């Protein structure tokens, strides 16, 4: 009995072996899938560990990410949601140039440039934050509280 099944196994693998030998080690399809997988691995690693510290500023409206800008490129960006906020990036720092909110505390915030630093415009629902893991897990005593 054992001999019979072993014989069958030998025949099976031999058949497979010749099948693959004939086609080459990888199908063309395999190569394409392989490339996609490698891209996926690299991409997911990138998203897991984030961009470089202090390079990107993210803008959130009511908790949702709506825009991202490079700190290395000077520019002015208008955000129109509940109100209108203008964010300015200059010399590697981001600040709130103007806002339609009443108290304009956000306009008086110091420019931000380190990962985790943020400028909040609570009335307009806007948070501007430098992407990346800050040196600490949290910061107490924030300015511009409402």
């Amino acid at each position, binding site marked *: 009995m054992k001999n019979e099944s072993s014989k069958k196994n030998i025949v099976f693998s031999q058949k497979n072996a010749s099948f693959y030998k004939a086609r080459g*080690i*990888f199908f063309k399809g*395999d190569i394409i899938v*392989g490339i996609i*997988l*490698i891209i*996926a*691995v690299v991409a*997911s*690693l990138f*998203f*897991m560990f984030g961009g470089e510290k202090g390079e990107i500023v993210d803008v*959130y409206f*009511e*908790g949702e990410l709506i825009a991202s800008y490079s700190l290395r490129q000077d520019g002015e960006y208008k955000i129109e949601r509940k109100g209108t906020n203008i964010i300015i990036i200059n010399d590697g720092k981001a600040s709130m140039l103007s806002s339609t909110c*009443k*108290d*304009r*505390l956000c306009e*008086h*915030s*110091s*420019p*931000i*440039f*380190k990962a985790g*630093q*943020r400028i*909040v415009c*609570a009335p307009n*629902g806007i*948070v501007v934050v430098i992407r990346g893991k*800050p*040196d*600490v*897990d*949290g*910061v*107490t*005593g*924030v*300015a*511009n*509280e*409402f």
Partner: protein
Amino acid sequence: MKKLAVAIAVILTIVTVLSGCSAGSGEAIAFGSFYNISVTGISAAKVIKEAKKLITEIENQCSTNVETSDVAKINSAEANAPIHVGIHTASLFKLSKELFLETDGAFNAAIFPLVELWNFSPASFFPEQKSIPSEEDIGVVLPYCSMNLFSFDENSLTITKSHKEAKLDFGGIAKGYAADKVSELLKQKDFIINIGGTIVCGKEKTIGITNPRDVNSLIGTVKLENASISTSGDYERYYVLGGKRYHHILDILTGAPSVGFYSVSVIGGSAAVCDAYSTAVMVKGKDLATRLTEKGFGFVTVGSEGIDTIGEVSFSR
């Protein structure tokens, strides 16, 4: 080649598992500031959703900014008209009354008429103030700034004020209260809740304390484990007039902004109590902090004489 394929498959599996690892965070705006909740563990996304719902519920009941809140109704009510309140408002009122008595009025949730007079309320604040209130104006509102003008009925869940001019504001304790309530929701051991700088965490975390005179830098860090920290400072909401800084933490005895510390950070068990104590110590100074260390709270103060720690605090510069 086959080995390479296997290797890639293994790496991909590991990466997929790691990135899908149960960790979650949520950030939004409430109580006039941002908040962020980060949790590691099973069902992180679900519990963050519940936490956000709870924060909104608390804000809707207790914020002076929300027109339909219990607090807004109390503030616009006539004298002797009982106003029905929700459980969060009730809890905040009871706790605020206790703390008002314990700190000899240094933490005062009824100081709102004075806050409005100085234009520090969310509705009235703007940075370019042209004048400060006169002694006379201050004298007119001061008598209405007492928790003793309010009573709470446990049976009917109502708050009644004895004078129309009396107003409540839980701004100095609401963030801490919300952080405490969210931490009660979380069964996970590794979490950090940050509501506008008032923080509660489980597993040990390193928390930076903002430099009150250079808000983009830190004066140092504290290690926090299964504890809370809250900070009050003279740089959070202020205006400058005639070269002098007028900030939003008011002293009921003088009717004017507190004098002394630039900032006070409090470390302890309850975030709500830390929140209230930080205001109280800004007003009353080091003596009050020393007294409160007997209850297990620690303090980091910053002032013209530098940085000081009072009580047991693991502070590093």
